[in-house]
């Protein structure tokens, strides 16, 4: 489990940030994206995948969450 932060990117997409490793990557896909259920599996553009427990869609970004790493980035 790692603390992560999800932000609104400048281009409109979501940006994933892992403070512990200073890793910044844009989120390519998010499993659930509805007002009631938001989260699940996050696919990053660097090849990594993380899982966050689905929650109600946060009213404001950025938000810090706990995430589980499913697949590491290649580096």
């Amino acid at each position, binding site marked *: 489990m790692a603390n992560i932060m999800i*932000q609104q990117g400048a281009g409109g997409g979501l940006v994933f*940030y892992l*403070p512990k490793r*200073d890793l910044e990557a844009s989120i390519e896909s998010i499993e659930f994206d509805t007002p009631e259920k938001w989260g699940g599996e996050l696919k990053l*553009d*660097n090849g990594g995948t993380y899982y966050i427990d689905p929650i109600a869609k946060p009213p*404001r970004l*950025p*938000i810090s969450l706990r995430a589980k790493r499913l697949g590491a980035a290649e*580096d």
Partner: protein
Amino acid sequence: MSTMTREETEALIAEVLEVYPDKAKKDRTKHLAANDVSVEQSKKCITSNRKSLPGVMTIRGCAYAGSKGVVWGPIKDMIHISHGPVGCGQYSRAGRRNYYVGTTGVDTFGTMNFTSDFQEKDIVFGGDKKLAKLIEEIEQLFPLHKGISVQSECPIGLIGDDIESVSKKAAAAIDKPVVPVRCEGFRGVSQSLGHHIANDAIRDWVLDKRDGQPYESTPYDVAIIGDYNIGGDAWATRILLEEMGLRVVAQWSGDGTLAEMMNTPKVKLNLLHCYRSMNYISRHMEEKYGIPYLEYNFFGPTKIIESCRKIAAFFDDTVKEKTEAMIARYQVMMDEIIAKYKPRLQGKKVMLYVGGLRPRHVIGAYEDLGMEVIGTGYEFAHNDDYDRTIKEMGDATLLYDDVTGFELEEFVKRLKPDMVGSGIKEKYIFQKMGIPLRQMHSWDYSGPYHGYDGFAIFARDMDIALSNPTFKNLTPPWKKVAEEEVKKAA
């Protein structure tokens, strides 16, 4: 555009790395690249923020340097204790030229060195008592200080002193903030982790201490984040922002105070100059207080105008009007400077190797003077810095991360720039080679370089360095060899 093609740059990298053993070569190859502007993600072409290779010469610092030297040190009304043996504090004392106003030793303490001066017995029996006594003494001798930060040096982490508990007790006793910072030098691969630790300490111990207190705010409140006032940089920045009609509430941390930092959560916009050292706290404020942050660049008129407009877009029309009026007013001065220096500097080539933000931020200023940056690199950047750099640099230019002494020398010998911008450790090596060098850490005892006023000084300094007749009379070693060979042949 670069004068070298991609193949040439890649061949150069391969050639320079030839002398290394296989393992070292494999490792270093990842840190050197020919820039490819089409790449979106820097990690595809360059690796950064990795442990330096043992046996090579690197110019990186340590976590203590990043915390005490960079982030905490410039906060002028606090006393920063270098907790541990005397050297770390003494040999980095007052070296960074972060200017401040105030009476040193009375209400400001920027250039002073406070240390617990660890001896053998402190290592054996622990230094907590000494720290408590030290804080007591400070309170007696310097009653006007506003707070204390305890900057750990390596032994503190190794012997496991509990500086947090000492700090908490001392804070209650003197009724002022005492901040323990766990920035032992062995943490992380460079000073970059020190920045992070320092930011986290500010977040935990300082930032929210005035939340809920009454504060008279205006819609134009901003904070300058990540400007360390080297040679007066933050002041040059502040003038422009105030002319735009904004109110600068806090300067982080050049010429900054503890009270300013505690008031920062009340601002409307955080202006982030040094992304590398202070993005952490900006991200935190964005999440906790909903304050957006904006990266800006105040080097050279092109970037200043771009940044000012970007900042003004956050505010109402009065700010936008004032910004345009300001840009127009300074344009006359800028045109004069460019008319004077551009013909002298046109086409000159520069190589940079600095830390933090400068390897990409100053590119615009050089381009305004008609100069070209043919190689750039960071001491301690992460991938997100290179993401931003790739777009600023020309195609096929050289990028080097945590470059070694040998590599940088070889690159300079092959690329033959007209000038190198780096630090004091590189300065005399390259000047003896016959290449002028300007220190881009400390502005070579000049400055400020930020803002319009700074650009005038920047242009003058670059001209002074490049037009210095000394360098015409110095024959660099590679030319000497060629001459002798010619003689032999004849």
